């Protein structure tokens, strides 16, 4: 790989051992990719604390500090180096717990201390503690063409497709190294020629709410895997929540990091624009039969209809989604055998508190939580066996990670399940 002078200087240790380790990792990573060079970035999103379940165990067993956690898990360095302040604009993604609801989540005081220590440590380094999988919902909104280094597959696909920012799906180590150096391999979605569509998807059924968009994404992801689908036949402009659910699903059943919606997303003003003048390598339709297949796949673990947990907020809920839930929930009471947890970024929770939404949810017997989700934090209400979710992504991961059954349906069906304790959803 060709390195610029400032990059060589960092690799030679002229900016200290941490940036040297960071540059060493970026070179190993860039060479693995076959990248020719690095590119400057001033927008990095990653996760780096020790609040995730396995990291908590690691920190507890090794009795180590956050310099060591960052050295090993963010720089791939067994040698512990002192971590300097970040060089570029850097945001923290989701955490492994909500410290305010630690009791409900079954999180002990020692883990909460890890969270607080992490906040002080990373805040001190200049990392913005957004603590969400959806940085684009709380102020980090890349501009079209902006080179980013983001983790979180659902955020990566949103950044590339909806905003026209440019990022690959970075990992914990490359995001950590990018924060310290302001560099990332110039490869993949940073280059124009890799951003064109590969597959044409013709919609033959109306796609309406977030659940519909989730099903569509879940189906497409499995077909195209890591390639770039182009959607035609979308009859109206979907909102943030719908595209968020679509992308999250497509990047779970497959590895989709970019898509186009003709006439909607910024790099797809027309079919020619989306495919860069080339022909699609494959065309397929999405009609009632495909929708049914997706529904059955995403519901493959749901068996028992007595629901004991309803989880909303994967990816983290927008204020609009919280408002919608509150309209369904106001004056109602959640069934005594069921819990309702809704996850949102801390900044949105602040507004929800102000709007009285948190009170509506709590009066009904639910909780509005921040920072994490059930799959990432491995946090469930005690004794959960059957969950209901309105996210295809969560329905994909939660049973695998936690060994529970999951029903997938609309937000309305999930709220009904919370109120009645029964799953009565079905494909409409």
């Amino acid at each position: 790989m060709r390195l610029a002078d400032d990059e060589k200087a960092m690799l030679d240790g002229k900016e200290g051992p941490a940036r040297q380790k960071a540059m060493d990792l970026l070179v190993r990573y860039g060479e693995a990719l076959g990248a020719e060079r690095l590119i400057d970035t001033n927008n990095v999103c990653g996760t780096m604390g020790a609040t995730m379940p396995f990291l908590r165990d690691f920190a507890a067993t090794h009795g180590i500090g956050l310099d060591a956690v960052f050295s090993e898990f963010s720089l791939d360095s067994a040698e512990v180096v002192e971590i300097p302040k970040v060089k570029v604009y850097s945001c923290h993604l989701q955490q492994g717990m909500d410290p305010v609801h630690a009791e409900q989540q079954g999180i002990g005081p020692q883990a909460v201390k890890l969270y607080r220590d992490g906040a002080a440590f990373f805040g001190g380094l200049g990392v913005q503690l957004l603590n969400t999988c959806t940085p684009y919902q709380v102020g980090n909104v890349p501009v079209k063409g902006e080179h980013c280094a983001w983790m979180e597959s659902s955020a990566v696909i949103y950044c590339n497709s909806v905003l026209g920012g440019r990022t690959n799906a970075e990992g914990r180590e490359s995001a950590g190294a990018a924060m310290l150096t302001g560099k990332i391999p110039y490869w993949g979605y940073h280059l124009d020629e890799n951003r064109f569509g590969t597959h044409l998807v013709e919609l033959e059924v109306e796609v309406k709410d977030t659940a519909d968009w989730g099903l569509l994404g879940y189906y497409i992801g499995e077909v195209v895997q890591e390639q770039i689908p182009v959607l035609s036949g979308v009859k109206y402009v979907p909102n943030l929540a719908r595209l968020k659910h679509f992308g999250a699903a497509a990047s779970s059943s497959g590895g989709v990091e970019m898509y186009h919606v003709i006439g909607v997303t910024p790099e797809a003003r027309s079919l020619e624009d989306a495919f860069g003048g080339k022909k699609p390598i494959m065309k397929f339709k999405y009609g009632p039969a495909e929708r049914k297949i997706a529904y059955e796949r995403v519901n493959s673990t749901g068996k028992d209809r007595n629901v004991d947990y309803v989880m909303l907020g994967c990816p983290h809920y927008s204020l609009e989604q919280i408002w919608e839930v509150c309209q369904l929930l106001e004056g109602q009471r959640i069934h005594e055998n069921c819990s309702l947890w809704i996850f949102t970024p801390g900044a949105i929770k602040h507004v929800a508190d102000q709007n009285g939404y948190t009170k509506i949810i709590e009066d009904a017997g639910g909780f509005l939580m921040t920072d994490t989700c059930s799959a990432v934090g491995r946090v469930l209400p005690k004794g959960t066996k059957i969950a209901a979710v309105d996210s295809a992504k969560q329905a994909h991961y939660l049973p695998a990670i936690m060994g529970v059954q999951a029903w997938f349906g609309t937000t309305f069906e999930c709220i009904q399940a919370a109120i009645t304790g029964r799953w009565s959803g079905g494909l409409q």
Partner: protein
Amino acid sequence: MKKIVLRGRKVVGGCAEGEALVTTHRISGWGGIDPRTGIIIETRHELRGQSFKGKVLVFPGAKGSSGWSSQFHIARLAGAAPLAMLFNEMTTKIALGAVVTHAPAVTDFDQDPLQVIATGDWVRVDADNGIVEVTKKSR
């Protein structure tokens, strides 16, 4: 015994040999494996319940969460990582994942490893030279 040689491009250097574990399904890292044991946990995956610990893992590529690398990173520290990784599709997830796993890894083969290698075959990986030698399991 029949030996087959594949040539590819080094992703991560080093040499290793062992038994192959082959899948035509892409692998999810976070939410797809248990990094403490190397067991595949994805609900509808064909290798669900099997571990890649100590195996030469042969697969099309990575999918899913960007936590791919961190899960394989944890697997290495837990002693549950694959011995080597052979794959077809280059992505940032798998490149970074292979780098932090510190196991030899090769891609861009002259023949499709998914066609040539079967689970149980003995595989020698010389990633520095991009050479993979396969001894077919006697059937």
